[in-house]
């Protein structure tokens, strides 16, 4: 499937955008691989993948309906 991904924090600097689109990703592992290939600088950042506003810590299947976001390390407060 084609995944539309929201970016935050320093990831937006790397991509030069708040949203990126990657093709042919069936699950979150494939998504991370595709993203890191497209933007090698992202591979060096320990980002979390969030699906529908929840952090995902194991490989998870994707579908067109889900909301995908990449979250670099938090620095609130």
């Amino acid at each position, binding site marked *: 499937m084609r995944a539309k991904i929201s970016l935050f924090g320093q990831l937006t600097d790397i991509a030069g955008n708040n949203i990126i689109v990657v093709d042919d990703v069936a699950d979150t592992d494939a998504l991370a691989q595709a993203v890191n290939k497209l933007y090698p600088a992202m591979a060096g950042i320990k980002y979390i993948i969030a699906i529908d506003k929840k952090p995902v810590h194991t490989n998870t299947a994707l579908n067109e309906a889900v909301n995908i976001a990449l979250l670099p390390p938090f*620095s609130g407060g």
Partner: protein
Amino acid sequence: MSEHRIKNIFVNGPIDASFIGDSIAKHRSKTEIGGHSIFLGQVRADIIEGKKVQAIDYTAFEEMANEQMHQIREAVFEKYDLTCMHIYHSLGKIAVGEICLFVFTSSAHRKAAIDACAETVERLKSTLPVWGKEILEDETYQWKVNK
């Protein structure tokens, strides 16, 4: 189930000291309270590679942060005997010396208020999708990293 609804913790710009004073004053009628614990985050003039921070520009994945905060709130209310909890986080450019985080817990007894406040601060720092961009004096910037 919980009585708490998901609240919006974000405010645009710094948190005024007078707003904090007003929040405290509102608890006067809650006469079951014996202790309040408050944590305030203030933007610090760190020196980064010889340049002074002049502000932090905060952004957030707001919907997710509010949901995460809701979960923290539920867990903390479950663990401690609290009367109330109020949380505010700034968005946008906050100058050094300004308040960007306001965590406020109240309880009949001091220990619950103090422990709940400290735990809430730690949990929100580690789990809320919020990012600070440190704006340096020469207008360059660096993404902040929480310790």
